């Protein structure tokens, strides 16, 4: 059910002039966030559609590409991201329970997980570069010893998808840092945590996309 | 009116060159009529209401009508029926258009910036000219050497994009003798509008004779063969040969033995080696005032004899 009324009047959030109440503002903002998430899904989705079509046309080439990735790295990264999703959700949970210290802690851990994810990603990328596994025409077919001349396309998808995802992780980390800052400053309370809720949904989308990227890129070959 | 004197090759709908063209025109005539009638109903109704119910005083009483389900059903359902009918009619013709005949005369078509090349099974090659016998199924198997093009014969009402990396096909059975326009209908760069070809429909005997004559190219003198290759490869769409006018690339008229200014390099004397280099690796030396990367390489597309023939031909341009 709705908010616990005893704390509602403790800290009244000043909502924007064109809303009728803080609740009204919260629900509207949340709808805006969901609408934005749809655009994220469709943008990444375009890549997934391209991937599925070409995976169907060149299954062997994609298998060769998937084999040259290290699934253990992807696996660890999946666990890291799922854990960060949990801490993100808990951050909101603690704010709802009016425990800003614990919330700040959860958000900090989330940022840390994001950083770990990016470090592992960085190691993966540098390793690929070292092997000559570049996207498209820069893939050194002779050095790699590729069986398929257009293996560059697989790595085109690999770098596009993980790269765009990586940019979202970085963006998410910045947004969570902003939420963390505001949590510490004491902006949020059980009646007002819209920003964290929104950033949380964004962060879960990032996780969601990785959940699909991991088996598609690393495992299915 | 002006339209009458246009009534030769490309009048309001161009000459129907095939049976399918006639079928398309019948459907089009029906659509024109139906469209005209619906426009008369819509626009006529509009004009009539505007006049009949024009504002007379500032306090006109108007009727309060919110909707009429039966009327609204009618003007949704009737258009739907008409739309589906023309869809069905269209499907029927399209099916004929897209079903490739067996045992057709097959001609290969290559689109390239900015010319059409045709290759017959006997090995005869032509540029921007395709000759076919009348009353015979002809199938065009088409691909592109660079970007998208579209092979369009208005008189036959057929069109098909030419896609690099795969083959697309068209077929027709011309029942009128004569010459017909072929256009490129998919935007392909600078000379897109100059990428025209001629389709010649001739009697079977004439076609056989033409094919025979074309196969004799190997016995011609070198410069004549060069001229032939020059036309097949459609070099003329970028290089003028009769005067010094500039098309896309430099004119080749009086070019041999002249001095050429090169972008960022010393001048060169146009000799056989320079011509050879310019044909095989066109971007090695760029004439001053022309952009880089426009001319495609002909490496691997011409053998030594053909190359010599071309150079001999260019020598004769005076």
């Amino acid at each position, binding site marked *: 059910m709705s908010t616990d009324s005893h704390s509602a009047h403790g800290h009244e959030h000043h909502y924007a002039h064109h809303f009728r109440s803080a609740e009204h503002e919260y629900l509207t903002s949340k709808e805006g966030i*969901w609408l934005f998430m749809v655009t994220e*899904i469709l943008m990444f989705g375009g890549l997934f559609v391209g991937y599925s079509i070409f995976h169907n046309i060149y299954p062997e080439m994609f298998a060769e590409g998937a084999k040259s990735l290290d699934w253990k790295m992807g696996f660890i990264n999946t666990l890291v991201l799922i854990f960060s999703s*949990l801490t993100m*959700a808990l951050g909101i949970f603690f704010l709802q329970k009016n425990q800003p210290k614990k919330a700040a802690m959860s958000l900090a851990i989330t940022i840390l997980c994001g950083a770990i994810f990016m470090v592992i990603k960085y190691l993966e990328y540098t390793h690929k570069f070292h092997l000559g596994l570049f996207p498209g025409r820069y893939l050194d077919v002779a050095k790699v010893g590729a069986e398929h001349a257009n293996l560059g396309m697989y790595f085109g998808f690999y770098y596009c998808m993980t790269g765009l995802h990586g940019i979202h992780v970085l963006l998410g980390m910045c947004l969570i840092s902003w939420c963390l800052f505001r949590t510490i400053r004491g902006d949020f309370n059980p009646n007002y945590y819209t920003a964290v809720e929104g950033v949380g949904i964004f962060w879960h989308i990032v996780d969601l996309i990785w959940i699909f990227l991991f088996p598609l890129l690393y495992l299915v070959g | 009116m002006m339209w009458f004197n246009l009534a030769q090759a490309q009048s309001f709908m161009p000459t129907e060159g095939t049976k399918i063209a006639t079928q398309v025109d019948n459907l089009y005539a029906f659509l024109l009529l139906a469209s005209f009638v619906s426009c008369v109903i819509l626009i006529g109704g509009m004009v009539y209401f505007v006049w009949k119910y024009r504002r007379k005083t500032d306090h006109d009483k108007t009727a309060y009508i919110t909707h009429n389900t039966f009327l609204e059903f009618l003007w949704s359902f009737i258009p739907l029926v008409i739309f589906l009918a023309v869809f069905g009619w269209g499907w029927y013709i399209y099916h004929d258009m897209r079903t490739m005949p067996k045992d057709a005369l097959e001609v290969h078509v290559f689109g390239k910036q900015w010319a059409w090349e045709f290759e017959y099974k006997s090995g005869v090659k032509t540029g921007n000219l395709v000759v076919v016998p009348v009353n015979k199924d002809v199938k065009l198997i088409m691909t592109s050497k660079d970007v998208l093009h579209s092979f369009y014969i208005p008189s036959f009402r057929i069109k098909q994009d030419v896609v690099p990396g795969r083959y697309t096909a068209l077929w027709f059975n011309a029942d009128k003798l004569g010459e017909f326009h072929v256009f490129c209908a998919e935007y392909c760069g600078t000379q897109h509008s100059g990428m025209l070809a001629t389709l010649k429909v001739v009697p079977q005997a004439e076609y056989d004779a033409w094919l025979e004559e074309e196969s004799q190219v190997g016995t011609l003198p070198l410069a004549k063969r060069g001229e032939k290759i020059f036309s097949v490869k459609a070099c003329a769409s970028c290089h003028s040969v009769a005067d010094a006018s500039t098309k896309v690339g430099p004119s080749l008229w009086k070019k041999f033995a002249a001095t050429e200014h090169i972008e960022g390099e010393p001048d060169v004397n146009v000799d056989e080696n320079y011509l050879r280099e310019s044909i095989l690796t066109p971007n090695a030396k760029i004439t001053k005032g022309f952009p880089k990367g426009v001319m495609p390489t002909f490496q691997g597309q011409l053998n030594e004899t053909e190359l010599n023939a071309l150079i001999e031909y260019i020598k004769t341009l005076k």
Partner: protein
Amino acid sequence: MVHSHEDSQGHHITPFVVYLKVAGALFLLTFLTVIAHHFNQQLGVLAAPVAFMIATIKAILVILWFMHLKYDSVTNRVIFGAGFFFLALLLAFSGLDIWTRVVEYSTL
């Protein structure tokens, strides 16, 4: 002040242990994906659908509990669902073209 009915679905608090359970399930399913991957040979053509199925289940868990869509308004559920629907549409119709093309061969 004005508090209509639509406002009542605002702040749902999911119990702590539910979050832990969902996260546990997600970890388990991740392990399951990897285990399935090791039996790729035996699974054959099913390998890809199995991996995709597991990913979908994980995605649904994240959407419903972590993103709170289970307790959110119908509008927001429809909005988010629409994204996936139109994505499927893009795949289906592009695929319809690509997999029904008649291949022409050169006869030269």
